[in-house]
């Protein structure tokens, strides 16, 4: 028995040390940093609630929040509709089923940096693929990334393309749990395929939809590499994201206290948004 305790301590001690240094200490220190003014070069000084006060009045921070909401307003519905459509099309015996599935999933395994660089080429105004296709139809050219009204929607479309394969798999797993008898029963009553989808399938897929909304929302609040590479947060700060702003405060402006405050605000914000979404989706069925 004593030997077992000794082995247990031995085998778990590297992990315990890791938790202490790279999980518990940073979590605790994040709350301390909020109260500090620190450039990492000179000694930190106590700043009270200066960082929090600054955050409340910081137009860039609020612009970043608004940008994220614009992103989500386009990204969430698009993601759900495309993922559902593709999952529904895949949910039957098909030729090359594995091929379709693997193709939709391909962008999920590719690095975000690569996908973003690829899309910078697709969106390029003069030599881009999309404007090239539009030119064939005598349309465009559209300044995808330099028009303040279009840039964030363009990023939302790119993010959908990158992630939707993941959600197709999730919906597909959900669809395979919907019993055939449910459809047969309602179709015997004379319901159309759309009615059967709307009133049987969709409600049964609520757990999957909640998951899609939750994960996509977290993704939306974590936007970083997309604006960092595509737009640098412009034009007119319309694609500035919270994480990009946080990164700049730490890396470019050396404001550790303020960057940590942004991190804390972002963490709280994500928690609140997720709780609200859970309530809204949870009550949607009773209505």
């Amino acid at each position, binding site marked *: 028995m004593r030997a*077992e305790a000794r082995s247990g301590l031995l085998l778990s001690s590297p*992990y315990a040390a890791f938790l202490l240094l790279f999980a518990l200490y*940073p979590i605790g220190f994040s709350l301390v940093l909020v109260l500090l003014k620190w450039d990492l070069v000179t000694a930190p000084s106590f700043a009270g609630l200066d960082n929090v006060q600054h955050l409340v009045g910081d137009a860039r921070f609020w612009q970043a929040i608004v940008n994220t909401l614009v992103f989500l307003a386009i990204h969430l519905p698009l993601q759900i509709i495309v993922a559902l459509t593709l999952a529904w099309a895949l949910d039957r015996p098909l030729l090359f089923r594995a091929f379709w599935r*693997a193709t939709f999933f391909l962008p*999920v395994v590719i690095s*975000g940096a690569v996908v973003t660089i690829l899309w910078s080429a697709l969106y390029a105004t003069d030599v881009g693929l999309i404007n090239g296709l539009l030119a064939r139809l005598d349309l465009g050219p559209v300044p995808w990334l330099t028009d303040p009204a279009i840039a964030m929607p363009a990023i939302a479309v790119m993010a959908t393309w990158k992630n939707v394969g993941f959600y197709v798999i999730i919906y597909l797993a959900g669809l395979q749990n919907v019993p055939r008898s449910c459809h047969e029963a309602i179709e015997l009553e004379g319901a159309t395929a759309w009615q059967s989808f709307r009133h049987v399938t969709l409600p049964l897929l609520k757990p999957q939809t909640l998951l899609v909304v939750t994960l996509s929302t977290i993704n939306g609040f974590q936007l970083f590499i997309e604006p960092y590479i595509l737009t640098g947060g412009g034009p007119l700060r319309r694609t500035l994201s*919270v994480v990009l702003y946080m*990164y700049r405060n730490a890396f470019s402006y050396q404001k*550790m206290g303020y960057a940590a405050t942004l*991190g804390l605000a972002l963490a709280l914000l994500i928690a609140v948004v997720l709780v609200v979404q859970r309530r809204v989706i949870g009550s949607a069925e009773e209505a």
Partner: protein
Amino acid sequence: MRRTAFYVILALAATTFLYPFLWMVATTFKSPAEVGGLSLLPDQPTLDNYRLMWARAPFGRALVNSLFVAGTITLSVLVFGSAAAYSLARLNFPGRRILNAITIAILLVPAQLTLIPMYTLIVQLGWVDSYAALIAPYAFNATAILILRQFFLQVPRSLMDSARLDGMGELRILFTVFWPLAKAPLAMVGILTFMGAWNEVLWPLLVVRDEQIMTLPQLLTVFSLGGGAGPRQLATKLAAAMVLVVPVVVAYTFLQRYFIESMASTGIKG
């Protein structure tokens, strides 16, 4: 009739996902005059974009860095992580319940909260521009430990008891009795960990400034921000991106079922 409609939807979607990749591959072999074109076959294929990209930034070195960093992290998460998971699942020792509770609790902490404190920690440790900064914060992974722990809990008690009667130590039991049974969860954890480390870009952008230490996604990002927006620069950037993509696509082609199952299972079980 309805069947055809499904195939049309699927083919349209597949084109939307595949055509940009194929166009990217084609563009890396095109001369500047051809770069804006839609064709997937360059008229006069050239390797100039690859030569330029290779000469202008240390992509070979970054490839080695990426393999080293992602490989070390994966190895650590599998070996040390399963040792921790094994002790948390099957050994009685003081502190076990607390460790289990912390493991679950930190899954709820968003990464944004700890990003800046982690960065100041790395600076204070003097680890900026070191492999340690890229590897140590990822050496363990709470999700991986929970997946492995869950699996180890299901291994029959009798297997452990007879191994102990044979005089085996705990490490030998873990690696010769538990590991052979745990191939599926180990493969899943391995793929998830490697892909996460291979694609990570925000963390390296914070803690590494020296080109010689940069991993591929970071060097690619820095490189792509440096160039202009002309056709030559565009093709060069895409050629650089290929260094990062080709290994992943090759692995994905052969192991796609495992990739999809591993990555989607994190969501499906949630």
